[in-house]
């Protein structure tokens, strides 16, 4: 299998028999050869959904939506993926560290990597997840491990910033956060007085603090999608 950029907005994937590619539903642009697409739902509820009630329900829908949005491509051929003119970044995983990507931004990944949905938050757990869903800062992330290629979407392209060494901590606007790789601790918190400068009307002004050793990708836009 090979995953590479056809151009900055399109991912080209060559599939051979016995291999599977997971991709976001609706992202297939065109294909040649014999390829079959099947909607895919992650089994097991993806980390469990304890708690009931309206608030948990909101978060639950969000997480469920994440799962429903995938499909599997199998067979023999070449498939081109893209979405709404967003830019595509290809990230190679060598098994040594965990890639965390904002769940909405996952375009496609090879079938041999492992994924799980995790909520990023200072409070952690369900409360944090709910808060994310309610404030629209929706920090649901897909964690990817193993060997393989992952394709991630960004608005206008992403820059990679090193975390660690001379830059022990990098602060990112959650709206511009794409993902990170490496031994990085993430703290999502409200920043007093930050709302003034973030300047987007509704919701709490949050910031994402990343510290440790690794790389964080930031897109050239404060527009979440």
């Amino acid at each position, binding site marked *: 299998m090979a995953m590479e950029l*056809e*151009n*900055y*907005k*399109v991912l080209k994937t060559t599939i051979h028999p016995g291999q599977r590619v997971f991709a976001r*539903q*609706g*992202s*297939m*642009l*065109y*294909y*040649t050869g014999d390829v*079959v*697409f*099947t*909607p895919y739902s992650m089994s097991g509820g993806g980390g469990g959904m304890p708690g009931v009630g309206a608030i948990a329900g909101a978060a639950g829908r969000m997480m469920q939506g994440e799962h429903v949005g995938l*499909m599997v491509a199998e067979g023999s051929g070449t498939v*081109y993926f*893209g*979405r*709404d*003119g*967003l830019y595509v970044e290809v990230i190679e995983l060598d098994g040594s560290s965990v890639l965390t990507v904002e769940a909405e931004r996952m375009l496609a990944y090879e079938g041999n990597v492992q994924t799980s949905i995790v909520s990023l938050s200072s409070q952690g757990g369900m409360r944090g997840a709910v808060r994310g869903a309610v404030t629209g800062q929706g920090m649901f992330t897909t964690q990817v491990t193993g060997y393989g290629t992952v394709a991630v979407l960004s608005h206008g392209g992403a820059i990679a910033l090193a975390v660690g060494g001379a830059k022990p901590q990098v602060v990112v606007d959650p709206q511009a956060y794409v993902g990170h790789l490496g031994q990085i601790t993430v703290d999502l918190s409200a920043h007093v007085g930050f709302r003034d400068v973030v300047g987007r009307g509704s919701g709490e002004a949050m910031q994402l603090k990343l510290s440790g050793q690794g790389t964080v990708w930031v897109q050239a836009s404060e527009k979440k999608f």
Partner: protein
Amino acid sequence: MSIQIHNPGTLPVNDNIPGNDYAFCVDLAGTPWFTSKGAMIAYYGNVAFEPLSRTNLTAMVASQFSSPLYADDWVVAQGQGKLILGDRGYNINSFDLDDGNLTIRASNLLAFEPGLSLKQSIVPGFLTLLGTGKFLASSNGPVMFAEPPLRVDPQALVGWADCPSPSHHFDAAWMHSFLSVVGGFFGMDSDEERQFDFTGAGTVLVQSSEKMLNDGHVLRQLEAQTVQLSQASLLQLHRSIGSRLS
């Protein structure tokens, strides 16, 4: 200031602005061009833009612009000057047809020379160019040229040349799993189940997909087709639209 400064003498002749895939310069030198409304972002020179209904080139328009549904979207640009065109930040490319034909999504066609004639395609929202001349097309991201056989997401299709018109293809595996889960045709919100199938020899032009929430061209063409319907058929259509809206 390190950025390149252009003037009418240094602007390219019928080419992209250097280093800019998203802006194009048309050299207007006596012969008129058809240009789509709204594509113009600036111009130098003595240039007149005339609606197709009010130009002195009535005969040329009548013979070359055979797409009445689209007449309001276009003007004739005449005179001497340099026109700069842009379209939503899409990549803009020029193409030359030599006694050829090419069908293109109406919203991706920006301009063409009158050596080409324009006709409405049977596929809603698409137009066919015939003849010899230059035209400008936009695409969301660089345009990809692909050879059939292939299947393409209708939203990602920019156009096709030389090969037969596409047919619809419904993915069997997808339909099966989908029907078993939801049990209905409407409400599908992805596109993998519906594809355009291209066969034969030719070229298919593909772009990164876009949200096609309100393509006025498609709507207009579908509306125009309802004149073929009988009273009973219109009522039936009315009911089915009503049930989808409720």
